[in-house]
């Protein structure tokens, strides 16, 4: 598996937010300021990486041997929910300053489509463990990139005198569409 190709394809060619539509709620919801976006982005990178690792192991050593593939959805989401809850408690106790900056985003991540999305995608693409972890890392970096770009632009959008009805989210969505159009240019660059 050519990791450089994976890096480019995961971040640019089929960016998880702009091309695969995953992780939209936090993408539109929490991208008002750069600080919030960066906090959300790093928390997502952290959680997606760990979640993909654990769910991959769970699938390979528990679900596949008993061929319980159909339980994938419920098993994965339970693992992710428990993981997020554990990480929140862990951060609160061990690294309080980090908890104050990332803490409020952690519960939001459980309902983030990207986390479960990546975990399931990795199974459908049948990657091995190393590739899955790398894919998870690169995809979540793509998420962080898209989130930072979006929040940077949205901060400027606040000062645009858009018509009253279009202010806020509608303009942000249209701008996200244009950004996704820009990312479309990467298509076909790499298989």
């Amino acid at each position: 598996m050519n990791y450089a190709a994976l890096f480019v394809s995961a971040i640019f060619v089929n960016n998880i937010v702009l091309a695969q539509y995953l992780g939209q709620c936090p993408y539109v919801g929490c991208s008002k300021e750069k600080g919030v976006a960066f906090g959300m982005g790093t928390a997502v990178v952290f959680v997606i990486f760990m979640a993909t690792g654990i769910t991959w192991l769970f699938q390979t050593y528990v679900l596949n041997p008993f061929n319980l593939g159909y339980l994938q959805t419920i098993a994965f989401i339970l693992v992710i929910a428990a993981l997020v809850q554990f990480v929140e408690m862990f951060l609160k106790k061990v690294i309080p300053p980090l908890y104050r900056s990332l803490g409020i985003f952690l519960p939001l991540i459980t309902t983030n489509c990207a986390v479960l999305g990546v975990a399931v995608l990795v199974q459908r693409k049948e990657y091995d463990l190393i590739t899955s972890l790398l894919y998870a890392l690169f995809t979540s970096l793509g998420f962080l990139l898209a989130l930072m770009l979006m929040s940077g632009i949205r901060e400027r959008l606040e000062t645009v005198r858009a018509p009253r009805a279009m202010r806020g989210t509608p303009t942000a969505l249209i701008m996200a569409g244009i950004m996704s159009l820009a990312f479309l240019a990467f298509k076909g660059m790499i298989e």
Partner: protein
Amino acid sequence: MGELVKMVVVLSVICGASGFVLSNLKEYTAPLIEMQVLTYEQKPAIERIFAEMENDPVADRRRFEIPGRDMPVTVFPIMKNGKLAAVALEGFGQGYSGDVSIMVGIDPQRDALIGISPAKMQETPGIGSRIAEPKFTDQFAGARFQDARSKADGGKIDAVSGATVSSGAVFQAVSGVLANYGAIKSDILKTWKSGD
């Protein structure tokens, strides 16, 4: 302390109950799902290979055990005026993103391929997916068994340029089918010679 115990008990009971409900539902729907998968994935592939068919190959399919292979192989018979005209088997290959499944049509009389057609694949659109185009699949039509390999392996088929991994998957699938076919050829002829 009671709170923690209650917590553990409640969550475990909920998960156990859901496991029970889901497994029963799975048992009930498993045959239905298999049927659906066959009709929406394998059948279109078979129809692409064989233009006209008297019978419904999916309905008349039969499973054959292969000595030394734990997975039974499903064979789809194609009848023409009451006699076995051809058979179709499914082969799997490791593609770029996940398994590629190819339906291979074989003429038992002339021991030659009738054609191949991809049943299920997630190759990258525009690149890997070009293995589904007639330009590539028609080369297999009428090819003898030993020719049905890439030119590099001494066969007569040239791979899809720029999609080596995906083409490799097709060759892997075809050779797998031919191996299975070789093992159960006699049983196939026996089952359908009786013209049932």
